[in-house]
């Protein structure tokens, strides 16, 4: 392994730890002050229907840390299979489960096994079902062509290997499947000091 590859790998390990720490903190301490909007305030800002937020478990709403509303254009239909990539505390998975109904299927993938358990509990509390797998978006733990739709909210930007993530999304989608993703993009190359700082990158 080259020095550059080794340095990249070390940075990715640190980044993974920081992502787990930061989003666990949002889930554990939803009243905390973060530099991003979160919880119901953020969900309302992005146009989530108030009736969804009233109906979803309070813990799922309070821990919401998305950057937009992937449901706005997902056009989910009853019976579809949906992957929520980076499912967090489960609010987007819950809404997806309501929209695809009992004949549909929602699968979550999250880096943090504790968040997976939390999301599954939140979904179960609504009477819906969701399987959540601990895993990395660069190696999605799902078979090829196994879902109709991939939704994701503020997650892909956290990866150093976005091309790999997009290839994985493409792999797990069935032919004719679609994505509805909200995420953060940057028009300019971020400075090396930001790239090398896991705290800033995870933000």
């Amino acid at each position, binding site marked *: 392994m080259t020095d550059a590859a080794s340095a990249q790998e070390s940075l990715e390990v640190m980044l993974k730890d920081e992502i787990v720490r930061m989003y666990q903190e949002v889930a554990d301490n939803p009243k905390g002050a973060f530099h991003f*909007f979160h919880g119901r305030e953020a969900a309302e800002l992005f146009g989530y229907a108030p009736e969804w937020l009233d109906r979803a478990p309070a813990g799922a709403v309070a821990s919401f840390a998305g950057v937009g509303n992937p449901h706005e254009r997902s056009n989910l239909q009853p019976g579809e299979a949906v992957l929520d990539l980076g499912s967090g505390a489960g609010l987007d998975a819950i809404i997806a489960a309501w929209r695809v109904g009992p004949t549909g299927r929602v699968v979550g993938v999250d880096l943090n096994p504790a968040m997976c358990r939390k999301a599954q509990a939140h979904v179960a509390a609504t009477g819906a079902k969701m399987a959540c797998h601990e895993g990395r978006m660069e190696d999605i733990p799902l078979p090829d062509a196994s879902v109709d739709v991939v939704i994701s909210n503020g997650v892909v930007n956290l990866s150093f290997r976005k091309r790999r993530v997009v290839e994985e999304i493409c792999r797990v989608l069935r032919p004719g499947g679609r*994505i509805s993703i909200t995420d953060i993009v940057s028009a300019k190359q971020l400075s090396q000091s930001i790239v090398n700082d896991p705290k800033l990158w995870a933000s």
Partner: protein
Amino acid sequence: MFRLLEETGFSRVRSAVVPRFRFRKESTQNEAEAYGVKAVMMTALKPV
């Protein structure tokens, strides 16, 4: 991201800015604006 989706073979790639996205802290928001950071919604299809 838009380019990556097209290069990976997705079709009908569309993106739109999330109009109400902003950081809570003014200093973070200012820095984000300096880098052209924004939230976007992307949709695309995997060809049949």
